[in-house]
Structure formats: C-alpha cells, structure tokens
C-alpha cells in the first residue's frame, strides 16, 4: 500500500465510500494540512480514543461548527504568520453540511476564509442510522422517510448544495464522486491552489444505508454519475464546467442495485419521475457529450 496520511485500522464499514474519499482528499492535500471535522461517521470511525487514523493535525469539535472552527484555525495561522503553505480543510457529512452545518458554512464562505470545505455526501444521516437529510434524494427509503401505505419514501428533492455554495460568489465550487478517484484528487489540488473559500461535494455510497453489496461501491458511484443523477461539475469563478457523460444510462441501472429504491422498481410512473430528475440535471448542467 502506498504511503498515506489516513492510516488503515480505522473502523469504517466494508465498502465505505466516505473512508475511500477521505483518504483520497488528504493524500492529495498533503501533510501541510490542518483538518477540522464535523461530528459524523468519518469522525467516529477514525478517532476512537486513544487511536487516530490521521497523520495531519486534526480537530473535531461539534456536529455543525467545523466551518467556524476552520475559520478560527485559519485566523490563528494568519495571526502567527504561518498560513502561507498550509492548507485548512473543513469536512463534514451531508447533514453536517446542508442541514445543521449550513449556517456556519455560509458564514465561512461569505467571510472569505482560505479554507476548502469538503462534503462527503452519502445522502442521509448514516452515523445515527440512516435518517433523512437535506441531501437525501427523492423517494429514498430512509428510517425517517420510510415507505408505507401513505409514503413513497423521501418526499423532497435534494437540496442544491453546490449551487448554494457557489451563490456565495466563491472562486471554486465543485462536485466529484468516489467512482472517479483521480478526479477527486485533481479537484482537491486545484481547489487548494486557489485563495479563498472553496466547496467540494463528493458522492460517497454507503453500502449499509443504501443497501447494496459492499463490493459494489465504485460501480454504484459511477452509475449515479453515468445516469445523470449525480451531476459532476465545477464552478470556477461562477463559470460552469460540466463533466460530460459519454453514454447516458437509464436511471433504473443505478436504482436497481440499491435496497433504498427497491419500491420504485415496481412502479413505472415513479421511475419516470426519477428519470425526469436525471434529464433535468443533464440539461441544467450541460452533461451531454
């Protein structure tokens, strides 16, 4: 195994997309990096006292405040005259980003801190047992949006978090997927080369929460992208740069591998609605090759 700053021996589940992505991020960022981490799976499985998987300075405070803590870290380094050459990364899951952490994140973006925010998006509160978040996709069956005689799973669409981040006028906002490791690392390096606040949202399958085989993580991640359900793009100074999809696949190919969408497969009308979400993404972000 190549030298890494995120050591094995942590307690993530087999096939955890977040663990893979977190390693890709820190290894691309390098050792001159300080991380502020929100509460969530990543924090829990990587820093159970007295052991830590992190070979860089790393701090966890609370569920929603990594953006503010990172702002403080960056300000402290600036006061010391030590910011030059040091990367500050704030990272969180989707709930810690789009729900409880949104206010602190917005404050950090608006204030212009030189911090890269990384959202590991596994589309629900997995650490507490698969409850719905603001980034849970439409119809997903979670423990707080269960299917039932009066419910078809999560009734609301995903919050457009990358667009919300970009709307702050920040120099760089992007999405990525753990299905494309080189793309993640390229974007991390690019982001860290830009001064100011940056936002990167990485799609990370959760085999337990999505109910797919743990060996299928890369495949599921890729299918989310290839169907248009997880658009990959960058905003560089507000300019949209999409990652084009060579051959668009029908959404069913992605949905059928996951227990959380099982109820859709028997319902052609629902499938059509999900296909419409993908079609909308393709159009909005210009994903067609």
């Amino acid at each position, binding site marked *: 195994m190549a030298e890494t700053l995120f050591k094995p021996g942590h307690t993530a589940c087999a096939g955890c997309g977040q663990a893979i992505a977190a390693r890709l991020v820190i290894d691309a960022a390098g050792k001159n990096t300080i991380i502020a981490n929100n509460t969530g799976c990543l924090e*829990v499985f990587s820093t*159970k006292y007295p052991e830590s998987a*992190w070979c860089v*300075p790393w701090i966890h405070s609370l569920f929603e405040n990594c953006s*503010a803590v990172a702002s*403080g870290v960056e300000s402290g380094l600036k006061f010391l005259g030590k910011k030059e050459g*040091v990367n500050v990364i704030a990272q969180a899951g989707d709930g810690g980003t789009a729900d409880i952490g949104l206010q*602190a994140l917005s404050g950090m973006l608006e204030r212009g801190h030189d911090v890269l925010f990384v959202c590991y998006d596994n589309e629900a509160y997995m650490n507490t047992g698969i409850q719905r978040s603001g980034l849970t996709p439409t119809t997903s069956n979670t423990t707080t949006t269960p299917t039932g005689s009066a419910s078809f799973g999560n009734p609301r669409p995903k919050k457009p978090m990358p667009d919300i981040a970009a709307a702050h006028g920040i120099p760089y906002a992007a999405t990525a997927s753990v299905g494309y490791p080189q793309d993640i690392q390229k974007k991390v390096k690019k982001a860290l080369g830009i001064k100011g606040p940056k936002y990167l949202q990485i799609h990370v399958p959760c085999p337990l929460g999505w109910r797919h085989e743990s060996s299928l993580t890369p495949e599921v991640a890729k299918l989310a992208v290839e169907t248009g359900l997880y658009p990959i793009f960058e905003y560089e100074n507000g300019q949209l740069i999409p990652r084009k999809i060579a051959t668009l696949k029908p959404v069913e190919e992605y949905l059928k591998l996951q227990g959380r969408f099982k109820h859709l497969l028997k319902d052609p009308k629902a499938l059509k609605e999900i296909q419409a979400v993908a079609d909308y993404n393709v159009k909005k972000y210009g994903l067609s090759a």
Partner: protein
Amino acid sequence: MKEFLEGSHAIAQVIKSCRPGVISAYPITPQTHIVEDLAQMVANQELHAQFVNVESEHSAASVVLGAEATGVRSYTATSSQGLLLMAEVVFNIAGLRLPVVMTTANRAVSAPINIWNDQQDVMAVRDSGWVLLFAESIQEAVDLHLQAYKIGEDPRIMLPVMVNMDGFILTHGMEVVDMPSQEEVDKYLPSYNTTYKLDIEHPQTMGYLADPDYYLEIRYLVQQTQQELLGIIPQVAKEFQKTFGRESGGLIQTYRMEDADQAFVAAGSVCGTIRDAIDELRSKGRKVGLVKIATYRPFPKDAVAAALKNVREVAVVDKSVSLGGFGPFYTDLTSSLSFLAGKMPKVSGFILGLGGRDIRVGSIHDVYEKLGGKQVDCEFIGLKQELLAETE
C-alpha cells in the same frame, strides 16, 4: 493610570493590552460596546489581531475554539441568549482544554425578552468546566481579565475562563479605573506558548471519541483541575496584588466579617449595595458582614465554610433561580456548609433583581429583616403583589 471610563471601554482596553491574536464576536446588548471598541482598535492598527465577524454566537465561540487550538490567545464576549446559543460550544471548549477567555455581560434570559441585568445566563453553563469569575466593580472586571488569562493558560490548568460582569450596571456604568500600562501587562502576562496545538510539524488529533472505557476519567481530570484551582486562584490574586497593589479576585472576599454573627453571601455588583447596607446596619450595632463569591467555579467550599463557621444566620442573595429548585448560590453554599454538621448556620435563600429590577440598599434591608424570621430557601424579594393579583 487612573481614568474615568465606561466599563465596556475599560474591558476593551485591558483585552487589547493582553494582546489576543484572534477576537470573534456576535453583537448582543449589553456586550456590544466591548467588541465595537476592539474592532476599532484593530481598524486603527492599535491592536494586531484578527477580528472575525461571525453569523452567530455559536460560530463566535467556534472561531475562538479553532484559533486557540492553533496556540493563539483568543477572546470573545457575549450575553444572555448569546451565551445560551453558545452553550454547546462552551462545554466543548472546556472539554478540549482550550484556555479561551470570554466576558459575559450578565443579562436576563427570554421569555419574556428582557435586556436588563441579572445572572441567569451564566447559570446555563455553570457545569461546563469553565472557570467562572464574578466582578463587583469595573476595576475588578478589568483586573479579572488579566487574571483570567493567567489562570487559564497555566500549563497545570488549561481551562477556559469566563469573567462575569453585570450587564449595564458594570458594562455601561462609569467609574474611575486604574488602568494597567502595556508594560505592566506585558510583564505580568507573557505571550501564550503551548505544545498543545494544531501544528503541521507535530501533528496531533484533538477531539477524540471517548467510549465508556475512557470518558469517566477524562471528565474526572477536569474536576480534579477545578479542585487544584482552589489552591492556584488565591496565589494568582496574591501575585496580582503584589504587582498592581490592589485586591481583586481570589476565591472569596469578606467585608466586616471579623466579629459577624450574621452574613450576606452574594456575587457581582450587588455586593457594593450590600456593603452600604452593612455599614448602615453596623451603625445600629448589628454584627453583620458579607462573604463575596469572587470565584463561582470552582466553588470555594472550604473558604466559605471557614468564613461562615462562627455565623448564626446567613442570607444568600441570588440574581438567578433554578426554576423549580433554588437560587444557584444558595444550593452551592448549603452543600458546602453541610460539612460543618452541627455547627451549620441557619441559611436562607433569597431571589432578587431578576430582569433588571433595581436592587437598592432598602432591598437588602428587606432581606435582612427576613433573616431573623422563618428560615426560607427560595424567597423572592420585592414582588409586586398587585401584578400577581391580576393573574388570578
């Protein structure tokens, strides 16, 4: 140098002389004058700090947490709802052993919304692990901020310190204050140096998950440090007195207690009013004194017991109340005195001044009059019976 200053201006000046590297705050009455002054000092380059304007008190506390974690002396100030919104971070800062200093301009909490002074806000974070100091005067508030950094940054301690000063009464009141010079402060308070920090040369993990095998001991260590503070805080006060020539802080202060057989116990600016009442009572031959709680956490249990061991009756003046229970000072005091067993004085608890209701010398006499009567544990003083009658 002696100057006639508003409390907030005095605090901003003394914080400036402590040379914090990062200041972060969110505006709330009556804390605003302090942080406005600091912002102006940074704008004028009189103070070389990063001033971070945040979107909430929760983030203000989180920013100073992050800054302090890089080994940089940091400062914030808040009040009332602001402190309640911060509460989660307040506990976290103490658990992470980061010696942040914060001013709380003590104010009532909502509902009903009320911007005036009492001491209810700090009680919400009483159990957080912070060192809690209470100032009686603007002078003492100035002095306690110097001592706060001294105490918190002590490598044996490494805990955050809150200086409580009564909102408006001390933050907006004016007083002749002996302001320490920059040279004096630099000599008293050297720059903050720690190896406990986020440093790329020496990576460390802060803020672990501790399971049931470890949590109990980690929390016990905070309690142990708090107990060690009972020895350290008086030393800091003594050293301060040697350097600056005046008594400020310490665990408790006493007034006319030498031969007292009755005593008031209180904290904050109300102690000044109580001193006046005591002088009047003394002139009538009453042997009454005051035990002022200068440090509320750690609670100076032995010091109060020693000060009150020959006293017959005690009146505890609380400017906050644990609704459904008692005044917080009353609870701590009775717990501490219970160790005196058979010699325990008769202790009564009184609630005064909530939401800025003026506490006058006459209010203290009202308390004193009750002292000779039936023992009470949580009696509200100065209630308007006609208002209460309206609700019936």
